[in-house]
């Protein structure tokens, strides 16, 4: 599965995207896996209330079904314009 990071999540984790092997059923479970990997992930996902999720480019909740998903993106609330 491809994972994308934007804005301060990208900065804290140090990469903008990566491919991971995971069977996480939800974004919440996926974040738990990432947090356990390295401190920089734990730091980036310390407060998930400030993080939004898109699954295959659609905004989704933390308990969305990741079965069949090819891409998950994590980012702070958008601030365009």
């Amino acid at each position, binding site marked *: 599965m491809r994972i994308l990071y934007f804005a301060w999540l*990208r900065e804290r984790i140090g990469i903008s995207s990566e491919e991971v092997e995971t069977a996480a059923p939800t974004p919440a479970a996926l974040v738990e896996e990432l947090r356990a990997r390295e401190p920089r992930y734990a730091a980036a996902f310390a407060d998930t209330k400030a993080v939004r999720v898109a699954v295959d480019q659609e905004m989704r909740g933390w308990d969305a079904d990741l079965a069949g998903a090819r891409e998950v993106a994590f980012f702070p609330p958008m*601030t365009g*314009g």
Partner: protein
Amino acid sequence: MAIEVRVQREPFDPAALLPAGDGAAGAAVLFAGQVRADDGLSEMEIEHWPGVTEERLRLFAAEAAERFGLLRACIVHRHGPLRPGETIMAVACTAPHRRAAFDGAAFLMDWLKSRAPFWKKERGPWGERWVEAAPEDEDALGRW
């Protein structure tokens, strides 16, 4: 009904988004957003999600055109580094009458502020910081 969306690094002239009068559009509204030098800000940097940004903006523009009966909806948004006074983005809408043109442009701005994948970072005497989403921008969506 025409829709035009551009996301680009290069500066652009917002005035160029105003179409020539064609006898159908009685009203044109152009919004331009510019970098403010608040708190001694020296630079703003805009990150976006290539591909997805353009797709979202096209969706918003199509929704606005349908909803307000716009004749034309155009959005141009820059990414990369910008200086105070520079134009960040612009939205232009034309319609037969003024209310639709105003509503179309305000609707696009409200959606773009909180639902298009852009993130802003500011640099200044205090170092650098990511701009946090404003609760009133989220609230603004409620009126549509």
